[in-house]
């Protein structure tokens, strides 16, 4: 009886181990995801590209929609923060300018980005 119980426990553990491994490696749902789960670096790039698109089309609603996909609550602050990061990274002033203008359009003005509003 004791041996049978041990066999059952071993069998269950063995099967569960394989099941969990297979289930997590090959998930049943689509692994394809939303921009909100992009890595931080790619989210930063998303913000920069959104600002650049805004500099071309001037469509603030569209820019908002694109930024909202990243899931941040304060879009203006997110863009302003990216602008300051861009400044620290030494990106060209024209790129920083696009971020500064989008941030300002979203109501986020910072003293460090102010000089780039006209870039």
């Amino acid at each position, binding site marked *: 009886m004791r041996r049978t119980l041990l066999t059952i426990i071993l*069998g269950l553990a*063995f099967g569960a181990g394989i099941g969990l491994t297979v289930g997590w490696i090959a998930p*049943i749902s689509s692994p394809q995801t939303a921009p909100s789960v992009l890595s931080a670096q790619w989210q930063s790039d998303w913000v920069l590209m959104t600002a*650049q698109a805004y500099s071309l089309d*001037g469509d603030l609603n569209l820019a908002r929609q694109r930024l909202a996909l990243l899931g941040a609550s304060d879009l203006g602050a997110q863009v302003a923060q990216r602008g300051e990061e861009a400044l620290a990274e030494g*990106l060209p002033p024209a790129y920083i300018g*696009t971020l500064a203008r989008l941030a300002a359009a979203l109501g986020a003005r910072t003293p460090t980005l102010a000089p780039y509003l006209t870039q």
Partner: protein
Amino acid sequence: MIEERPRALVVFLVAAAVGLIGGLVYAWFISPVEFTAVEPSELRSEFRATYLQLVGASFAVEDDWTRAQFRLDALREPKAQVARQFAEVTERAIAEGRPAPMLRAMSRLADRLGARTAVMVVYLATPVPTFVPSATPTRSVLLPTTSPSPSPTFARPDTPTPLPTFTPTPVALPTFLLVARERVCEPGPAQIRVVVEDEKGKGVPGIEVWVTWDDGADRFVTGLKPEKGSGYADMNIQPAITYAVAVAQSAVPIVTGLKTEPCPSSDPAQPISASWQLSFRPIPPTATPSPTPGPSPTPTETPTRTPTLGPSPTMTLTPTVTRKP
């Protein structure tokens, strides 16, 4: 003892099967794997389209092929598939009437990816604004590093990356000929007026007309002003800008160098600017040229067709001035 072993094996296998099912149910439904810090390659198709639009817009601002290529490579798909997807996104942007600089950059990028289509050619043919480099010294431009898989910290290379070989795609040639080009002086805004007729001189509605100029392009369709004729369409033009006109699926302008000029006016207080009226008719089938590989991706000059027509009292190629009271 001999009978116990097979029995134990059966018990083990049954237990393992139950454990396997339990493990799968847990991993798939109770606690499915969650994705964090993914790359653009994991984006769902709708977001992937947005990403491609953003890459195109960014290329318009940065004019940096290496950076654009890096971003597209992050989709981790075969280049041909990325090119096809990018071409679709570009065509959608053109249909939505996005700003000309963006469309031009997207068309250039699509062209560079080898995915040029007929609707893009009008943007490829338009002159590209001169890129003014920043005077401020900048450090190397860092692009995102991907996580969790080890890779790319991107730095702008000192030497240009070898570019893919450009394979020209066939360009649609005009199917219409300019049969009359008339300078019209009359009060009102200066316009380009287009009349598209069939072989019998009857107006043809629904023909797409592209007007391009140095930093823009516009598209309109004949027949939207039926009171002026079913093949008629017009567009207001500005002084000091030179326009080119392409009709239907033509990838190259049929008429170039159109400019409005002041007309003689009896009342100096009310200057009149000249309009251009252009009439087009289909090229006879025997004269229709077969498509040939097109011009370079960003031609500086676009070829102009010089129509040769038989004598006809209604067809003239010589600009004439019509003064309307």
